[in-house]
């Protein structure tokens, strides 16, 4: 394993620049309109898989700066292209798996760049008493000053002396400029983007704890001079109004919510922000502005919860339930994607609209400018408070004799409740003709996206009525599937016949191998997880499960004990298909088990793995759904 990692590092270092690949193979095709403008090298009418992270914070975010993050948007874009940058705890961070294809810095728009200004001599902001407290050497004062900022972000009531729009707008302009500077069409794509940081809570007193309604806002090209924040309104529907206005102004934009798992049931609640019933206008506006949801990131996975999906043996994956900055547990209903798909279908059948007709992506939410995508090379996400294995609870506290003997202090408490339960970062995959802002943003719009828990596994998913087994062995598989069907993210309009689906997954060549591919079927009154392709043999038709492939991990070295599949491919038809009934289908790909980050860190430390978190995980990918809609 070590040799393999070293070898990879050596190869990755071989090249630091170069032109993108051209494809002499490029036969002309007509699947999907090519984006405007000249094609870049690598253009593929049948679309390439590109990987990126759409959720990155830098020093300009108030909660990153306070945790000693000093890296800038420039550093973030350099990191994504393979350069090494420093973590606030002093060690080097280099991206696992080689450079990414796209990356977006999404600093919190609330008080954007204000904390750095408060800590810069000569500025008026640095003269504020709050600045003196915030950057004092007394933890109580730092905490009180910081909590005050969090409370303001949550309530939407600005701290007037800190709400310096000149500074905020100029730092926003700097972030836009950094995105423009590092954008290299055909090679590396960036977006002007930021995070809208809405949090609900019943508790009136200070702090940041509450139901997470955060969303990241992305501009396809040009961006306005001011970013809408909770200090304008904490209501996401007001954000959508503002986005509609930007779009009317020629600035195409979309937003992507995240951490519905800790939204306290608010993210997919069946009411508006102000408690009114949902209606068609709400659904239309929501889907116009939010075609995608971030389904997994460091602070947990939002696909589903064991309480919602008791028959899904893989539902208990990186579940994280404590509200932001709090030990209160998030409500389950209204917090998970699969349930939202079901409720969306129910609304559609009963009332004629679906506000949850969204696709899936994943990201890191790193606050240290660079995501930790590999379990084997993990640095969590906040900054100095989770920058060491002790701080994140993967190894016992110094001086203790083992896991039964942990002292009762704040470090251990935070690690137990928060950091030990966080995961390695996710990544977004998109199918796009080329690596440009236009092509990738268009893929977001048509939801031709998939989410992974970190590895760069690739998944194709097509639905259609004319597919046959022969296509699986045809060199033109993707081309024919685009011509005769629709890809992930699309609506499949019924013709009376049963559709079939092409499901095709390929491992990350530099990560683990595949165990199985599943289709998750959701209807208005139920859900089912069906294995459709297995590393070993075919699924048992009665249980709809693969037989156990016996995969395991050597816990002394974290080396997989056996090989799974390099790729899995199948033509699948729903055995319970009902032509008259709406159904939502998405694909879940599972790797063989591998060590969780906490196990890697324990192994390196020579101590037993933390007992209250899993020692191994099954990395996975989720596609955006295909929605079957009965004809007429």
């Amino acid at each position, binding site marked *: 394993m070590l040799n*393999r990692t070293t*070898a*990879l590092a050596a*190869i*990755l270092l*071989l*090249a*630091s*620049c*170069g*032109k993108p*690949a*051209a*494809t*002499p*193979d490029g036969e002309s095709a007509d699947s999907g309109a090519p984006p405007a403008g000249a094609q870049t*090298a690598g253009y*593929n009418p049948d679309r390439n898989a590109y990987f990126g992270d759409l959720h990155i914070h830098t020093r300009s975010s108030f909660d990153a700066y306070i945790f000693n993050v000093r890296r800038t948007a420039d550093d973030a874009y350099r990191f994504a292209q393979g350069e090494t940058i420093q973590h606030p*705890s*002093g060690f080097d961070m280099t991206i696992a*798996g080689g*450079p990414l294809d796209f990356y977006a810095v999404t600093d919190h728009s609330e008080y954007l760049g204000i904390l750095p200004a408060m*800590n*810069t*001599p*000569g500025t008026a902001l640095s003269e504020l008493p709050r600045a*003196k407290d915030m*950057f*004092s*050497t007394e*933890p109580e004062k730092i905490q009180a000053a910081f909590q005050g900022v969090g409370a303001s972000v949550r309530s939407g009531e600005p701290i007037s002396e800190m709400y310096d729009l000149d500074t905020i707008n100029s730092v926003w302009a700097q972030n836009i400029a950094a995105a423009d500077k590092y954008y290299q069409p055909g090679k590396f794509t960036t977006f002007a983007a930021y995070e809208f940081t809405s949090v609900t809570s019943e508790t009136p007193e200070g702090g940041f704890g509450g139901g997470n309604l955060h969303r990241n806002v992305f501009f396809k090209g040009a961006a306005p001079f001011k970013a809408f924040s909770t200090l304008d309104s904490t209501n996401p529907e007001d954000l959508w109004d503002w986005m509609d206005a930007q779009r009317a102004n020629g600035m195409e934009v979309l937003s992507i919510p995240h951490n519905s798992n800790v939204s306290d049931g608010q993210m997919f609640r069946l009411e508006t922000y102000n408690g009114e019933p949902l209606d068609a206008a709400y659904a239309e506006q929501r889907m116009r502005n939010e075609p995608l949801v971030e389904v997994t990131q460091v602070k947990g996975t939002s696909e589903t919860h064991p309480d919602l999906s008791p028959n899904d043996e893989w539902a208990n994956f990186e579940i994280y339930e404590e509200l932001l900055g709090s030990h209160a547990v998030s409500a389950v209903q209204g917090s998970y994607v699969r349930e939202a798909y079901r409720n969306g279908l129910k609304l559609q059948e009963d009332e004629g609209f679906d506000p949850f007709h969204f696709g899936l992506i994943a990201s890191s939410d790193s606050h240290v400018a660079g995501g930790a995508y590999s379990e084997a090379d993990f640095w969590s996400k906040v900054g*100095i*408070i*989770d*920058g*060491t294995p*002790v*701080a994140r609870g993967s190894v016992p506290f*110094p*001086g203790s004799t083992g896991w039964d003997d942990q*002292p009762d*202090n*704040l*470090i251990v408490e*935070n*690690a137990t409740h928060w950091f030990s339960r966080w995961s390695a970062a996710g990544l977004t995959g998109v199918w796009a003709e080329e690596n440009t802002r236009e092509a990738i943003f268009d893929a977001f719009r048509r939801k031709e996206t998939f989410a992974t828990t970190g590895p760069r596994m*690739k998944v*194709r998913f097509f639905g259609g009525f004319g597919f046959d087994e022969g296509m699986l*062995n*045809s*060199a033109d*598989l993707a081309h024919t599937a685009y011509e005769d069907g629709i890809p992930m993210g699309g609506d499949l309009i019924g013709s009376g016949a049963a559709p079939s689906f092409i499901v095709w997954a*390929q*491992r990350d*060549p*530099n990560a683990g191998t595949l165990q199985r591919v599943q289709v998750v079927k959701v209807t208005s009154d139920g859900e089912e997880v069906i294995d459709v392709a297995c590393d070993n043999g075919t699924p048992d038709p009665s249980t709809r499960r693969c037989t156990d492939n016996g995969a395991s991990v050597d816990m002394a070295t974290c080396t997989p004990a056996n090989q799974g599949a*390099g*790729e*899995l*491919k199948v033509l699948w038809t729903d055995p319970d298909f009902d032509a008259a009934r709406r159904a939502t289908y998405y694909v879940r790909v599972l790797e063989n088990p591998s060590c969780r980050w906490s196990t890697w860190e324990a192994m390196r430390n020579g101590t037993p793995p933390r007992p209250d978190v899993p020692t191994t995980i099954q990395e996975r990918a989720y596609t955006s759904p295909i929605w079957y809609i009965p004809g007429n």
Partner: protein
Amino acid sequence: MTDDNSQSPGLRLLREPLVHFVLAALAVFAAWSFTSALREDADRTIHVTQSDLERFAALYAAESGALPGDADMLAIVNDYVRDEALAREARRLGLDAGDTIVTRRLAQKMTFMVSDLKEDSEPDEKTLRAWYDAHPDRFTEPQKITFTQVYFSEDVRGANAVADAQAALGALANGSDWRQTGDPFMLQRAYGDLPVREIARLFGVEFARALADMPASESWQGPVRSALGVHLVNISQNTPAQLTPFDEARAAVTADWRDETRRSENEAAIREIVGRYKVEIEGVDAN
């Protein structure tokens, strides 16, 4: 028990790291006192007391949730000395103040001033050539390969994949169409000028290494194994890594030189200011 009980558990644990740090610090600060041996007056001496050290360590522990190691303590004291030296220099230039916050701000202000004092210089031809010669890796185009590949899936063919590939090698030599050979592949079948690093990202390291060593040829070669299965490859071009000629790289060389020069001149100016001070750390005999 001892009066250690009256302290927070953190402070009790701090004792031992501090001892290690004091030993480690000897080496570093001895160098400083050498350069500042002639400046013995009080204004030119920075004292770091035992209680300073404990305060730094406690603050680090509070912020990071972990106790500082030797390297951490060294970095903290380094920063402190640097900030203190720059702050004193700022005061000498006419500003004045007293506490930690002001000291930190003055140090930052001084850092900005030092940066501002260093105007961008215009490098001459000789400087640029020397920079180019000294950093060839920064101006080198990576090895790139133009190739076509056909794929034999082990997931489909099992142990026959290699034999099937070998059989296909003969068929391709006799003019079979490569587009209709092998199994469907999710990535592309042909790539132009693909850097080896990209090949590793798409096919895995093993395949990238194998291709890097294979010559361009009109004949199909292989089988070559990747993380995804078995492949036959037709390499039409294998361009070794090559140094970009100076004239083509001139703009990149200038930008690189300017970035690095600015950074290092700034650091040197700050080091020069810090060097004007003598450093004394309680418990460390640097003389």
